């Protein structure tokens, strides 16, 4: 038996909106620790890892770990029917083939049940390593979203270079090029408007903007976003979801140099 009740039901809606374009089908794992998902996009370039900790829910019960395969678009269709202030409860039997979403309006006047059929998904579960990154940038999520959106209209690849002074996003396209630099500013009053950089080593990596823009759909979940980078490794774009958990996106870098003759 799995049961999870979330008073801030809107969060779940936002979570789903941020990942449904990246991944079509995915397994949600419900364990005593929490409600989590891990999935790669079809071309294995990016990975999304979601964790909603059990103690963040208002009620959480998972007798034994179960895995629920869902089509995220279909799940999103059902969650769309929930109001932003609704309380959402998820329920599933251990061996059942459906999951039930229950939406309660804040004043308890309206209660709706939606039952979604589960599917068998051949998941490729990956272990995600804990690593020390060469550079970690924390910045306002809305700023990051804006940068990605703006640059995508110029080019399709962004070069992110982090130095101790700031983080620079650059792109080149047919019509020209663009550079946006965000300086480290710890002096701002509100912590969520700060840009901070922790640096062990300068890093410079290229990424497909298409994916970053897709990640930026998680902006409504959090005020700040954290980018963690190391040479040749995937970038981690993390949005914290209050004290409930986090959503992390991993994106493999692009190969930069074009000089070499193609051998591949």
């Amino acid at each position, binding site marked *: 038996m799995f049961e999870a009740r979330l008073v801030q039901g809107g969060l779940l809606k936002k979570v789903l909106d941020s990942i449904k374009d990246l991944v079509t089908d995915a397994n949600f794992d419900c364990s005593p620790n929490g409600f989590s998902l891990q999935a*790669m996009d*079809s*071309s*294995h*370039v*990016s*990975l999304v890892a979601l964790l909603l900790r059990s103690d963040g829910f208002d009620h959480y019960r998972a007798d034994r770990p179960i895995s629920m395969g869902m089509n995220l678009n279909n799940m999103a269709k059902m969650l769309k029917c929930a109001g932003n202030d609704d309380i959402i409860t998820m329920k599933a039997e251990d061996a059942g083939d459906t999951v039930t979403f229950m939406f309660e309006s804040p004043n308890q006047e309206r209660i709706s049940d939606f039952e979604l059929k589960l599917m068998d998904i051949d998941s*490729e*579960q*990956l*272990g*995600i*390593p804990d*690593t020390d990154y060469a550079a970690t940038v924390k910045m306002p999520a809305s700023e990051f979203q804006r940068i990605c959106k703006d640059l995508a209209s110029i080019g*399709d*690849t962004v070069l992110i270079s982090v130095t101790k002074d700031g983080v620079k996003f650059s792109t080149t396209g*047919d019509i020209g090029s663009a550079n946006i630099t965000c300086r480290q500013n710890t002096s701002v009053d509100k912590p969520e408007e700060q840009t901070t950089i922790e640096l062990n080593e300068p890093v410079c990596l290229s990424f*497909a903007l298409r994916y970053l823009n897709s990640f930026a759909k998680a902006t409504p979940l959090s005020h700040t976003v954290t980018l963690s980078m*190391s040479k*040749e*490794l*995937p970038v981690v774009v993390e949005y914290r979801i209050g004290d409930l958990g986090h959503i992390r996106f*991993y994106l*493999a*870098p*692009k*190969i930069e*140099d*074009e*000089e*070499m*003759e*193609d*051998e*591949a």
Partner: protein
Amino acid sequence: MDTPQTIHGVEVTLVDANHCPGAVQLLFRLPTGERYVHCGDMRFCTRLLADPHLGRFRGANAVFLDTTYCNPRFTFPLQEEAIEYVASTIERLMKESAAGGPSRAFLIATYVIGKERILVEVARRCRCKILVTERKLGVMRCLDLPGLDPAQMFTLDQSESRVNVVTMDFMGETWPYFRPNFVNMEQIRTELGVDEVHGVVPTGWMYEMKRKAYPVRSKEACHIHLVPYSEHSSYNELREYVRFLKPHKVIPTVGVHDDDSGKKSHALLKHFRNLVDETASKARFLSTFRRRGSENSNAADSAPGNGAPLTSIQEYDPVKMACWQAGQPTPYLHIANGLQAMERTTKRLRIGDAIANIFRSILALAPEDLLQAAYLVIGKLVPDYEGLELNVGPSIVAAAVAEATGITRAKLRDMHNQLGDMGDVAQACRHTQMTLHRPAPLTVRGVYRTLRQIASEKGSGSSNRRQRAILGMLRSCRESETKFLVRTLVQNLRVGANWRSVIGALARAVVVHQEGLALPKARLDAAAAAASNAFHLCPSLDILVPALVEGGVDELERRCTLTPGVPLKPMLAKISEGIPDVLKQLKGEAFLAEYKYDGQRAQIHMLPDRSVRIFSRNCDDKTTAFPDVCEAITAAAAAECQGLVLDAELVAVDRANGNRLRAFQELSTRARGEVTTHQVLIQVCVFVFDLLYLDGQPLVAQCLRERRARIATALPHLRPGYVELATSVEICPRPALLGLADGVVAAGTGTSPRAASRPELPSTAAPVQQGAQQAAADADVKAAQVEAKVEAKVEERLQEVLLEAFAGGTEGLMLKCLDVGAAYQPSKRSDSWIKLKRDYCEGLRDSLDLVPIGAWYGNGRKAGWFSPFLLAAWDPDTEEFQSVCRCMSGFTDAFYTEATARMKARQLAGPKPYYRTDECPDVWFEAAEVWEIRGADLTLSPVHKAAVGHLHPERGVSLRFPRCIRIREDKRPEDASGPDVICELYHKQTRKMTNAAESLGKAKAATAAGPSLAGKEPVAEGSSEEDDDGGHVEGDVARE
């Protein structure tokens, strides 16, 4: 050496480095399990790879590499080749000297140690001692080289030898490039008192290597031979070494000193980027990025995909040479490797063998994948008749390729224009996006399933979903998979695999698999023929492949039979060059002369449930386009009919006008897609000419006479203008031999009113009969005469029928053997069917002079050239170039190359305002030259605009089947054919039809009056008359 030693807990092994004597590579294994290779100074050779110790260090943590020549410009031959060159050169020069040539001394430059193998070989080949310094001799004595005997080969005595060993810098500086020092050499020359001095400098530091393998520098009597002999590895060898070791990291040891920034070392490392184990270089992170369950998923990766199906069937080992193991699904790479191999040859037999080898591996390792594999080899998804299309346009593929490779669409377009094939383009693009985790390798089943899914995508967003599916596959592609996957998607594999070659190969593969290799060739060929026959009757791999796998070749006949609903490939006819030619081809057998209607070939199936399906000549399902025909057939068929298959021609008719036949062009204006009966504007009549299946019985093996007889039973309710029998006349050219007394037998066998038998020519029978009697009584000479007479008679009769056929508005005649060799041979262009068409008899004798004004980019074989060309006529009144046709035949390759180069120079940004056409070629040209073009006939066309307004208000004239004869150097574009010429030719050809009818009347009158043999003359007159006649007969134009 070659034995692992443990020093301070570190296991150290020394292995040969093929450098100078004593040089070794060091292999370290740390207690932690980390492995390192320091190759020291090393000359790579394939022998080193066989070393068992080195083999254990594949995938080492790092390799300290001898990067002396780590640059693509350092390519030099194998040591063996260089040694051979030195030895043979010196040997040759010595022989010349001995034969009275100039006396010569030789110098070989070496370091104190190293390059001994050159000296040994020179001493051996030239049978002479080599002068060395004492020190060098001492060194050589210490060495233990095979074939080295210092006492025999070397001397310290100047007088004993003409071959001196000198120090490396004696003849000049070698680094970083060679600068000769002729002074030293000249000195030696004087000392030794010889005419010429030849120096040999073995080194790898040779910029001169680019063009010439073994350059010689000369100054007066001194010559220096630069020999690319090095004891360091060349660039390619280094890469091969690294490829073999696949280390996590390469650490350069040479050429990176005083390099603070690490830039140089970084530049060096770039050369090995693809060879090092990238995933391991991200070890800390990605080692944990591992699949939870299937650890063995990479097994297929690691197996070397040597993919050598391009060997003969005998040499191919289906298990060992395959790139995967039993029990695993067949990787798509297996198919791609096979296709790649086929692409390299144009020889049919080798292609056939390659396909058979592909299938043999699958039969041996994963037989359940055979069906899908067979489809993928042809690049299809389902039997043709099911008509399932991929529905993937070039733009979707291009978008997916652009996204997978990160190349811009514009660049892609340029590459496409250059390479002409999307597959080659995709293959040439380097992927710029890393993945988190290598996708699972593509499998045959997976690719097939995805392609089916792509084909069945419907509705909104379907093109997006298709593109995503393609992208997913492209990301997973390895090696040549990209190329062939893309080619499959654009439905053009271009490797010479078609249904026929695949079916034959399938049968051979199955036979070899089931019965072993020791089979006579005849057995294989018989199997291939049997499978091919079965496929013609039942062109469905879905039925054929399981039958083959389960029952072998012998099972085919039982399981693959003609069934209503599964179309067979229609039988085709040979072309002829005129009546005499036809008669020769028919070899005197009885035949049927049948009207050749100008319509659309249709194979009409009626299933036991009386539903009707119609298939085109290419077995495409056209049922939905002809609901009216379906109704007509149901009405015509016998009520108790349990299924039939008809071969027929669908012809547009004008029912209101006495069922007059209409031109093919009008039929083609019918809607192509799905229509309902009441939407039909162009009425169609079915002219049935063959019956292939009736009530559970395939009739293909029966003779034509028998099949024709059964049509009456099958279709008792014929209705003029809806379903008719094709008009036909039976002609028997050998009455004497068959013992028939009535000479040329001619009887209308058609039951339609159109085919009403006309009175036979009574006068023709008599002389022949007489002749026959004489022949019987007299000698052979006379019999021959009679035969000649008979032939003339037949010819005359045939001419008459042909003219009637033209008059009836048909294309000509089909002549079919009735009794001998008269079975229905699916898909064969058989000798027993011959077509006699106006094109072949008369053709368009006059040519048109046209101007190329545009062209398309060629595809496939013609990639890189323009093809087809858009040709135009010149209208002096409107001062326009009006398009006439696209022309793509009659050109030689050389012509294409030249024309493309010439036209490129005249390319325009867009059409000139005075170019009139509805065609949209890829490029437009300045009108500058005139080509002479010949074609079959002229028709009115909606896109081409020649002589527009003269014959039809909007439509122009176009030339069918154009081919280029030559360039008219003598004509300017303004001298090109104009509307007057085109109109005249157009009228002339329509007049032929009407005139034919008229002359037929005349001929009949003549035969009735005069002696029978004269009957031929009026016809001939008639045809010559129509050519000379200047008057315009507008009869057929009015019909348009």
